[in-house]
């Protein structure tokens, strides 16, 4: 939990501010569903405790109930980050997954794409995955499906959206885009200061 030093304590309005609306949680769950499929249920129905979502400054955080209780002592203006940031709401109310959720979602991934070592860097620089860089792909991946991108040594590199279904991949040109880039772990360096605040 990160917070700026201050004597300000959280108020009821602060708690209200962080509470997440039904519509928004719906949006979040749909998006995670796109990325990890039915496994999204496991994020909420966890055996090791109660986990919940909170929104703050447009960012959605996923945290255990214990951490939430601690965080509620901190005024909303001073809270920088709590739990895992899984994404953010745009000003128009759309939800985007951010790279910080990768560690959370990667183990549950339903559709995966493995990238060749030669194409890893391209992806980590924020480019789409081309056919030439495609190492493996999960069978039956539909088109425009949220996927988790792995390196050949099974290290999660980021999230993407399949631009072609598995069947289409087979006959595609080497320069066609197979997977659209959504986020990648290169952002931890490229986009460091925008990740949390």
């Amino acid at each position, binding site marked *: 939990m990160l917070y700026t030093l201050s004597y300000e304590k959280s108020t009821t309005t602060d*708690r*209200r501010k962080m*509470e997440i609306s*039904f519509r928004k*949680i*719906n949006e979040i*769950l*749909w998006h995670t*569903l796109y990325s990890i*499929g*039915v496994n*999204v*249920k496991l994020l*909420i*129905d966890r055996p090791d405790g*109660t*986990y*919940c*979502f909170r929104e703050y400054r447009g960012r959605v955080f996923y945290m255990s*109930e214990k951490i*939430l209780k601690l965080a509620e002592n901190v005024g909303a203006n001073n809270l920088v980050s709590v739990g895992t940031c899984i994404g953010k709401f745009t000003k128009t109310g759309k939800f985007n997954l951010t790279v910080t959720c990768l560690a959370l979602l990667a183990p549950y991934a*339903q559709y*995966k794409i493995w990238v*060749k070592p030669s194409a890893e860097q391209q992806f980590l620089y924020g480019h789409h995955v081309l*056919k*030439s860089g*495609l*190492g*493996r*792909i*999960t*069978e*039956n991946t*539909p*088109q425009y499906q949220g996927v988790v991108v792995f390196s050949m040594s099974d290290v999660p590199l980021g999230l993407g959206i399949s631009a072609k*279904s*598995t*069947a289409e*991949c*087979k006959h595609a*040109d*080497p320069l066609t885009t197979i997977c659209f880039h959504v986020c990648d772990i290169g952002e931890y360096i490229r986009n460091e200061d925008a990740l949390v605040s």
Partner: protein
Amino acid sequence: MVKISEVEEEEHVLKPTSNEFSGSESSCAKMNKNEGIVALGDSPLKNDENVDNDEEEDDDDDHDDNSVEDSSDEIDTSNEDAMEDGDSYYSDNEESEQIKPTGMDIVKNVLERAAKEAEKNESISVAKPLDLEYDLGTLLAIDTNEMDSDLLRDSTEEYLKNLARDNTQLLVNHIWELPITRKENEIVAKLPPPSFRLPREKPAPKPKPLTKWQQFALEKGIQKKKRPKVQWDETLQKWIPWWGYKRTKAEREKSWVIEAKQNEDPMEDPFAKRAEAKQERVAKNELQRMRNLARANNVKIPREDTLGEGKKGKNKKGQPKLNKKGEPVPRMGLLTPDKMNSSQLKQAVAVSKFSTASVGKFQSRLPKEKERSVGALLPIAKKRRAPFLKPEEERKANLDIIDNILKKRPKLDLEKAVNRHINQEEKQRAEEKSQKPKGKGREKARGKGKGNRKGKGLGKVKMSGKGGKGGGKQKRGKKR
């Protein structure tokens, strides 16, 4: 000026008249009775016979009341005086009986006196690692020394009381260093002007909002020139101020006659005309002042055309400007309520419908009219929000949402089904190929050709769970 002590006072406690001390006054008096008192130190007035005589008696009384040990804490003005007078006068000391005018005795006497001096000073001198900060003008002493946390915890009252006494003593010592005079039987010290700046009670005033001219001048960098108050008038041959009754008087004096111009109407009264022009200028100035006020306070003011006066939107002849259609040209500025847009009109309709005794319940409605909630437009009581969910409830709610989502998702994904079908077909074909040893060579050749055509990249791609190219080598990927 502060009154230091009263001659008639029974105890030698400083009784200041200033507010700063009024709170601690009672505690000071109490201290005096129980333990030490705030001693007055070396009074510059100790030679004053009047004071001495009175105090002597008091001292004696005190000694009778208190035990002998206590006496050391108190000021002994009488002893001081005795010493000053050359050992001739002692009020209550045992040593006084032994004094004889021998050499040894004189030395002894001197030593004793020194000891006494030290003892006396003990009560008025307070040792502090750091000097206090004083502002005698406000009778303020600030102790920046660290507090003894152990003592403070163990015997809070005692410790604080002692600390207060010591600090007050130090302050009083400093007061005695000031020039002291006597006025109407009272010892009075002249305090220096206060130097400590008390923090202000109210927040600092906000800067005044600039007028339109001030803002303009600021942007343009126009600076106000200093102008002398008066100005030399050639016709009157005297100095005339720029404003005020003298200026008006001079103006009247100066322009008792106005030359009629040729192109002017001879029947018009030029004096009346001028008075009117002046009035108009005053009115304009007043209007601009009001505008500035309105701008400063964010108040909307009606447009000029509703006021009926002003130059804007009118041509040179003073008639309103017209567009091609012959309508008056709309001008810049604030909107008037007579030109509301559709949403404003709808709001107005909603509010007026709502403003009945039955809160708009029985108002007739247009066939396609939507019901508009007035709550957003009027300051009606806000809706109460649902209470906070407990984590367990929240989890259940979230699970419900997920179940709902999963339910909504189409069971049969057409694309997926098609893909699966294609996949199965390909598998089948691959199996057939591998089962036909005869056609192996041909198949291989075709596979190679394909690889060449499509480029190097394709050949390396391994589709998980599918037959590899040509050879039927299967690499199983992760299947969910």
